[in-house]
């Protein structure tokens, strides 16, 4: 059954309404996808944690499409316009439009057959935009995190380095190697570096860290050297004190005892225990009465010397644990001033006459005794060894050389492979004797430094 013109107009109006709503919905969805994509990107670039909720924002287009539909409802064309449009499309010559004024049934026979006009939406561009915006949003959502933070502040991974440096500074402060104020400044500086470091400009950070590391290391080395010296002196003084105590039991003469006490005093003075960064301390009453110490006082002195030596050893050990000093230096400190034969010194002190030189004897004993004679009776055998003769090119005589200039500066780096002519390096593939320099990036400095600091 074919529809009447009024039915066709109603149907046409409905189609028009549906199409306008669909079109507005697509536009709204496009706009929403684009806006939400931008929001997703902004949130992710800002580094907001836990962005899973952004995925639910996609559903935001549903209420928007509904709003667009409601808005289109209020904007839909008036019925008389739709009827006029139908009249024009069907070439009814105003007869259909005249229904607004009178009944035009009598003219129905003169009108073309009723049918609903076709509405065609060329939706290619709209659909393309919708697809692009949806794709944009999806990409924004699924983009790897490392790509979304390209422009944001990216801190350097220096946490462990800073922690280590802070521990070093703390140890140096505890051991009184670094003053409290300076140590606090360094701690603050390290905290600030940790906070402000940026992956976009790491040079400053790495240089500052290297500087602190170097200053820590220098301070630790200085302290370790000082500790080594003091421990050596203290060990020798301890050896002498022990020998004096043994010699007193063996009947050491009064003159020898006095001389030995003077030597002991001069050794303790040479140790300069109370100077430098690692300050030690001996009981003042013992130091005041060094010339007339009895056995009991000597025992106390020995204990005080041992205590100071242990304290220094502990400090050096702490520094070594933090790798601030070379482990070899630690072992040196542990063996510092050890005497191989302390009994011999006691015997010397009790037996020597006409002026004992306890100090010289002590030093001789502690440094390992007299030097061994050198022997040359184990030559390398050249039996069955063949040597290949290699003729060197004639060298240019020095008188032929031409002086270009004299400079105290280091040779300039040069990229040219210009070999020095007429000398032994004529055929060498080296770079002509010019200095070769390799730029070491700040982040690689520590690795390079560690490589050259290897134990073996």
């Amino acid at each position, binding site marked *: 059954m074919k529809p009447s013109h009024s039915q066709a107009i109603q149907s046409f109006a409905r189609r028009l309404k549906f199409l306008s709503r669909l079109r507005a919905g697509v536009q709204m969805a496009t706009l929403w996808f684009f806006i939400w994509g931008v929001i997703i990107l902004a949130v992710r670039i800002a580094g907001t944690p836990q962005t899973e909720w952004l995925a639910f924002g996609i559903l935001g287009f549903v209420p928007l499409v509904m709003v667009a539909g409601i808005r289109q409802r209020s904007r839909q*064309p008036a019925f008389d316009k739709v009827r*006029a449009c139908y*009249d024009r499309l069907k*070439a*009814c*010559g*105003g007869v259909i*439009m005249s229904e607004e*004024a009178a009944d035009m049934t009598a003219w129905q026979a003169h009108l073309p057959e009723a049918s609903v006009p076709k509405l065609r*939406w060329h939706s290619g561009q709209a659909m393309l935009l919708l697809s692009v915006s949806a794709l944009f949003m999806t990409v924004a959502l699924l983009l790897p995190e490392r790509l979304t933070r390209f422009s944001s502040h990216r801190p350097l991974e220096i946490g462990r380095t800073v922690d280590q440096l802070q521990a070093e500074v703390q140890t140096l402060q505890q051991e009184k190697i670094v003053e409290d104020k300076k140590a606090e400044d360094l701690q603050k500086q390290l905290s600030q570096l940790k906070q402000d470091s940026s992956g976009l400009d790491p040079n400053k950070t790495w240089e500052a860290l290297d500087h602190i590391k170097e200053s820590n290391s220098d301070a630790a080395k200085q302290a370790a050297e000082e500790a080594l010296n003091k421990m050596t002196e203290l060990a020798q003084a301890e050896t002498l004190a022990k020998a004096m105590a043994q010699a007193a039991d063996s009947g050491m003469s009064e003159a020898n005892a006095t001389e030995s006490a003077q030597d002991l005093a001069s050794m303790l003075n040479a140790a300069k225990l109370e100077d430098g960064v690692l300050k030690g301390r001996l009981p003042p009453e013992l130091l005041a009465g060094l010339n007339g110490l009895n056995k009991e006082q000597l025992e106390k002195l020995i204990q005080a010397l041992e205590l100071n030596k242990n304290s220094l050893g502990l400090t050096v050990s702490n520094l070594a644990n933090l790798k601030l000093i070379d482990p070899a230096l630690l072992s040196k400190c542990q063996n510092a001033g050890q005497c191989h034969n302390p009994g011999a010194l006691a015997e010397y002190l009790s037996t020597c006459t006409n002026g004992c030189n306890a100090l010289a004897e002590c030093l001789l004993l502690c440094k390992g005794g007299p030097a061994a004679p050198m022997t040359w009776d184990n030559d390398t055998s050249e039996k069955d060894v063949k040597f290949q003769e290699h003729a060197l090119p004639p060298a240019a005589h020095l008188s032929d050389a031409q002086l270009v200039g004299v400079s105290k500066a280091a040779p300039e780096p040069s990229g040219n492979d210009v070999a020095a002519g007429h000398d032994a390096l004529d055929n060498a593939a080296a770079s002509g004797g010019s200095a070769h320099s390799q730029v070491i990036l700040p982040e690689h400095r520590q690795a390079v430094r560690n490589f050259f600091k290897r134990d073996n």
Partner: protein
Amino acid sequence: MPDTILKPEELQPAADLVRKILEQLDRILLGRRELHRLVLIGILSRGHVLLEGLPGLGKTALVRTIGQILKLDFKRIQFTPDLMPGDVLGTHILQETSSGKRELTFQPGPVFTNILLADEINRASPKTQSAMLETMQENSVTLLGTTRLLPQPFFVLASQNPIELEGTYPLPEAQLDRFLFRVLFDNVDTEVLDRIISERRRGELPAPTWQMEREQLETLFQTMERIYLPRPVSRYIARLVSATHPGGAEATEPVNRYVSYGASPRAAIAIAEAARAHALVAGRPSVGFEDVKAVTAPVLNHRLILNYQARFDRMNASKLVAELLGRLDETGLNLPKDVVLATA
């Protein structure tokens, strides 16, 4: 208004009369079907028509034939530079009465007729041209304080020659605006020329085989009064005329660029009337958009005042009107560009 819309049986007699008039015109004047319809539409709209074309294209013949078919009084004035207003309107002359008294009596000019052919109207002086203003607008002549009505119906069918413009006086805008249509006469094709040569010895036209009675003409005018103009169509006409004004809400870019002054409200009325007549000629009781489109060009092409830029760019009013008709959405639905309508 609803009761005034014509029913098919009411419209049929008028439609038959129109058909017969056009048949006679097409039979007598060969190859001018569209032109005949336009001139008839002009007469049904009680408007004046300006015919523009080269000599020998049949302008006078057309007017004379219409006069014969409609059985209306027909006069012709050949406009020349020395033609005076009195030669057109009439003049007072001193005459002796039977009683021996002398008094001024009015001697009507050729304008007192039903159909006036003003031949080469642009050759008369502005003074004489302006003498036509009152006759064309008011259908009356006022001389020495006395207004005399012209016989009804009164139509001016003026012709002007677009060449040999030396010694001519272009019609002022005020007078141009009084013409309902400006119809351009163009050359006929070879086929028609062949028929004219073989069937019209010495150019003599055959006599009409049918003539309309005065009452029948009245019937036509009465039927015209009942042709219905729907609101969407009248709104379209209003939008169309507004769009001819530069800076108008729906003015197109060429209008803004080339038009100095757009069409007057008289033009809108003229379009509406002409569209009604077009609907009657098409045998319909109401005006459709296609009726408006059919008459818009001849109504507007002499009413748009273009600027110098248009002259430089060889733009004319006809092109502008065609462009405007193509761009303006008739119904005002203003569907988006990507939505296309098509009949099923």
